[in-house]
């Protein structure tokens, strides 16, 4: 088994076998390949970067080059069991609209993102007075694709505001699972399973 990024591993372990999945921002298809090979999942992908799309297609995956902000509307309602958005929400122009789209297309949705309220990020900003650069947020402010930084508590508020139910939540720190207590301070990364 190839080593999946930890947030992808959590998603892979919690997708029902044999389900239909749309992976939005699927990169080179690592999660899709794992879902296909380990769980017999019918996985489709959407990815912005042409190099990643080429790699994914050449490994036999069905991936379409496109932009989550504009290319989701063609997918019919509830055409997938899961819509997955991993480490992509914070790069989209309209994150709230994307959330709605995820739960229109998928019966459930997995969303993972780096937590901007993680204590190292906070201290970097507090002490250094500069936009944080951490292992999960490795790029400088003018190079990062992350245009909508979000914290776990922000995300919870958005989800509650849009009448979305949290069906499951997982947190990571230093790439290891950790409990939910004080997650907004101590989790570097969060994975949510959502339903409407």
């Amino acid at each position, binding site marked *: 088994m190839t080593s999946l990024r930890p947030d992808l591993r959590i998603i892979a372990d919690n997708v029902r076998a044999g389900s239909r999945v749309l992976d939005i921002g699927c990169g080179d298809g690592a999660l899709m390949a794992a879902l296909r090979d380990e769980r017999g999942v019918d996985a489709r992908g959407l990815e912005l970067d*042409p190099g990643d799309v080429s790699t994914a*297609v*050449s490994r*036999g995956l*069905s991936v379409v080059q496109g932009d989550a902000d504009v290319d989701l509307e*063609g997918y019919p309602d509830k055409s997938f069991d899961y819509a997955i958005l991993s480490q992509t929400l914070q790069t989209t122009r309209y994150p709230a609209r994307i959330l709605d789209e995820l739960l229109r297309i998928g019966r459930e949705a997995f969303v993972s993102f780096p937590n901007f309220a993680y204590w190292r990020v906070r201290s970097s900003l507090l002490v250094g007075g500069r936009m944080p650069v951490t292992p999960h947020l490795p790029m400088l402010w003018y190079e990062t694709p992350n245009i909508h930084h979000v914290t776990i508590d922000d995300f919870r508020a958005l989800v509650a505001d849009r009448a979305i139910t949290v069906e499951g939540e997982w947190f990571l720190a230093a790439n290891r699972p950790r409990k939910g207590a004080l997650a907004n301070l101590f989790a570097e990364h969060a994975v949510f399973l959502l339903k409407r």
Partner: protein
Amino acid sequence: MADAPPLDQRFGLNRQIVLPGPLMLDCGAALSPVQIAYESYGSLNAARDNAVLICHALTGDQYVASTHPATGKPGWWVRMVGPGKPIDPERHFVICVNVLGSCMGSSGPATVNAATGRPWAMDFPVLTIADMVRAQAMLLDHLGIGTLAAVIGGSMGGMQALSWPALFPDRVRSAVIIASTARHSAQNIAFHEVGRQAIMADHRWCGGHYYGNEEGPSSGLAVARMAAHITYLSEEGLTAKFGRNLQDRDSKTFGFDADFQVESYLRHQGISFVDRFDANSYLYITRAMDYFDLAEGYGGNLANAFMGTRTRFCLISFDTDWLYPTVESRRIVHALNAAGAEASFVELSSPFGHDAFLLESPEMNRIVDGFLRAGGLS
């Protein structure tokens, strides 16, 4: 391989068959008999499930990976088809068919109408892309091929490859559509009309009845080719290749000779084209492309053409292709998504415009190879 008849006259280079037909055409006419020229490479396996149909573009032909009999040039897609290539005769049974209406051995305006004993000329029925596809299916019946492992084509070949799963959903498992479109745009039709008018304005066209004459409408056909050729290239590509460079001279001549390299190049493209192509065929095939709008037969909704399809699709476009730009491929992809089809799509970067699909593109080969192998033929 051992099960394939070793000396089956149906298979091999430079094949031609006359099928009784009739082939019912979209215009209402019935074509009978139907003459079809084609080539095949490799062997049909025992399960008869390794056939790959390659569809050629407007002025292409069946010589996809063998020497062209008229020009002596290598096949038009040897970069994609051959030993070690994504389409490999070692693994695939490769078929390429000269489209109906063309002039390389399949029924077209230059072939003899059995009823009159003279070339059809403009009495040949007007064709559609679907007619070309139905003729290919008729040939597959003759060859004993029920289902294609894959159909693949670029440009007009892509229109055929896209039409295959819509017309014969049970006969094609994978479809690769490169640098193509689901319908001809007003701009596409406009450029073709310029070409057709150039041919028909040539006094040697004679209403299409030039076959017995010393010379056909070669000037008109050359101009048509020149105009079309511009649409196959990109501004970036033309600038890189020619810029404003002068042709074999140090200064402008203040005349109308080919002062610029780009003029000389286009003239050469036009002149060499008339040696290998029939002007009436050019009229008929461009007409078929202009009539192409796959959604038209499905209430204007392209997704309906693919509802419930089990065919896998792979689409590739090129960023400098302004003839069939990426947005056209994306329209197809959106329709396929709406139909729940298994679809892949990528826009590749190339400076060469529409013609990029015929040129060296390791990325295109990597994608096609991976896509075909995932379809089950490795």
